[in-house]
């Protein structure tokens, strides 16, 4: 080998050695949530109130219960990027995607949650707490902030900590929860519990497909928008509620020990079949006051022996469902589900 070749080889190996040393850390490891909401890109020129038009509003048709908060949501998709829809039930958002969700109680902005796909293997979670004037929102501590709004005597809304964000959004494969084909369907359920009106400028499966933001294209989502197939409107609405409120954990992913039917939005489309499975599923969690071995996830015609309903009614820490993110029970949903269980045939 010539001298020049040896020099070249030495230089190349030196570069390799340095590269190998640094390859274990990613440049995105240094990224973190900005200290102020105004610096996350939500607002035009960083002015709270003026939403940057590149951020698209959207509204899931089966919203998560958040103690009656009014919620407003936006998504940002980097220019030129597309949503990976190879698995139509599990969209993968492009790197750079950002989500925001603003919580308002009694007309006052309280918090805005921020979810940012900073790299292929890293989502950043953050929550910003608004000041009393609603003029600025600052990053909450990782552990959250307790009791920021009193909902009822002795009950208050807490700003979640990062651990709670990950508990719902997932730790291994985190991502958004209300941004999927069923939730963004144009075939909106008129009976959805706490259903929100959809505005003309909101993102739906149709707008995403029209703008060629799906990869691969999903024309079937426009031709036949996702819909929970059910024999009656009440079953459709109840299954939609379960998808929006229970499906992030009870979904057969193996993250929790759960052997009931998956309630993930993409898995409840055969609504009658999922309802039948829930109504046939015995549970080891006994409904208080019911004899051992007689509790079901949902029991036909027997709301009093239906564990899911009992846990929805509870706001005691060891039994309430969902177990986090809510301090008030959802009475409207409880009434609707109780009525639906009663209506199911024995």
């Amino acid at each position: 080998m010539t001298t020049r070749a040896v020099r070249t080889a030495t230089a190349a190996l030196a570069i390799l050695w340095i590269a190998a040393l640094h390859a274990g850390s990613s440049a995105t490891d240094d990224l973190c949530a900005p200290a102020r909401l105004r610096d996350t890109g939500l607002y035009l020129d960083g002015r709270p109130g003026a939403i940057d038009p590149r951020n698209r509003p959207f509204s899931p048709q089966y919203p998560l219960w958040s103690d009656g908060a009014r919620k407003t949501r936006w998504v940002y998709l980097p220019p030129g990027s597309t949503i990976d829809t190879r698995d139509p039930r599990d969209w993968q958002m492009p790197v750079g995607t950002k989500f925001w969700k603003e919580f308002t109680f009694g007309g006052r902005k309280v918090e805005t949650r921020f979810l940012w796909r900073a790299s292929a293997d890293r989502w950043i979670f953050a929550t910003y707490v608004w000041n009393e004037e609603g003029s600025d929102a600052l990053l909450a501590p990782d552990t959250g902030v307790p009791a920021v709004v009193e909902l009822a005597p002795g009950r208050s809304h807490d700003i979640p900590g990062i651990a709670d964000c990950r508990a719902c959004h997932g730790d291994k494969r985190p991502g958004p929860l209300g941004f999927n084909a069923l939730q963004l369907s144009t075939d909106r359920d008129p009976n959805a519990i706490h259903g929100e009106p959809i505005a003309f400028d909101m993102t739906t499966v149709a707008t995403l497909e029209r703008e060629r933001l799906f990869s691969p294209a999903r024309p079937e989502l426009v031709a036949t928008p996702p819909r929970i197939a059910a024999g009656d409107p009440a079953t459709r609405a109840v299954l939609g509620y379960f998808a929006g409120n229970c499906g992030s954990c009870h979904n057969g992913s193996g993250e929790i020990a759960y052997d009931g039917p998956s309630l993930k939005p993409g898995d409840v489309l055969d609504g009658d079949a999922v309802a039948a499975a829930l109504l046939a599923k015995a549970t080891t969690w006994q409904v208080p006051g019911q004899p051992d071995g007689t509790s079901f996830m949902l029991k036909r015609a027997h709301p009093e022996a239906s564990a899911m309903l009992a846990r929805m009614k509870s706001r005691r820490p060891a039994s309430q469902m969902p177990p986090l993110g809510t301090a008030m029970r959802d009475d409207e949903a409880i009434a609707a589900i109780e009525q639906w269980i009663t209506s199911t045939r024995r």
Partner: protein
Amino acid sequence: MKRTHATTTVMVLAMAVFSGALLRAKAPAGQDGAVTPDKQKARVERGAHLVKTMACHDCHTPWTMGPTGPHPDMTRALTGHPSDVVMPPPPPASGPWIGHMAATNTAWAGPWGVSFTANLTPDKETGLGAWTEDMFIATMRTGRHQGKGRRILPPMPVQILNALDDEDLKSVFAYLQSLPPVKNKVPAPIEAAEPPAAAEKK
């Protein structure tokens, strides 16, 4: 010509090694391969040590009375509150005494209600047999059942276990999973009465 060829060869090799380094660095943790039997054995041994020294037996192994006083009954090691020991309602809290414990040291009453220590053996139905390593670690990291559910109740010192690194938690889990499974259905926690201020928002 010969020199150019040598340089090109070196550069190609360099690129190949560089790509390999990058790919290896980008590989998700745990993708390096299955745990070897030796590694698993080491984890079980380490886990046994941690379980012993971190006082897991104090609450998860029922106590019995012996000639020198109460001590953990190791014939029921880590099986949690015995299903055949039915606890009566706890006495009311009085003054600065806010809690009570069962003679087995496996049931505790306090402002949160009554908690019963879990069966940590790998029985599928009544213990940790259906749990995964990820669930166990998530529980200790979040203080929530399986990382997503209800909060772990007192007196479980989950904040102490949270201080362990992942390898230690994997070791504890490996040891617990190596135990013989014992069927012992521990009662669900008994919750304190809902706070009077629980009037629901209309």
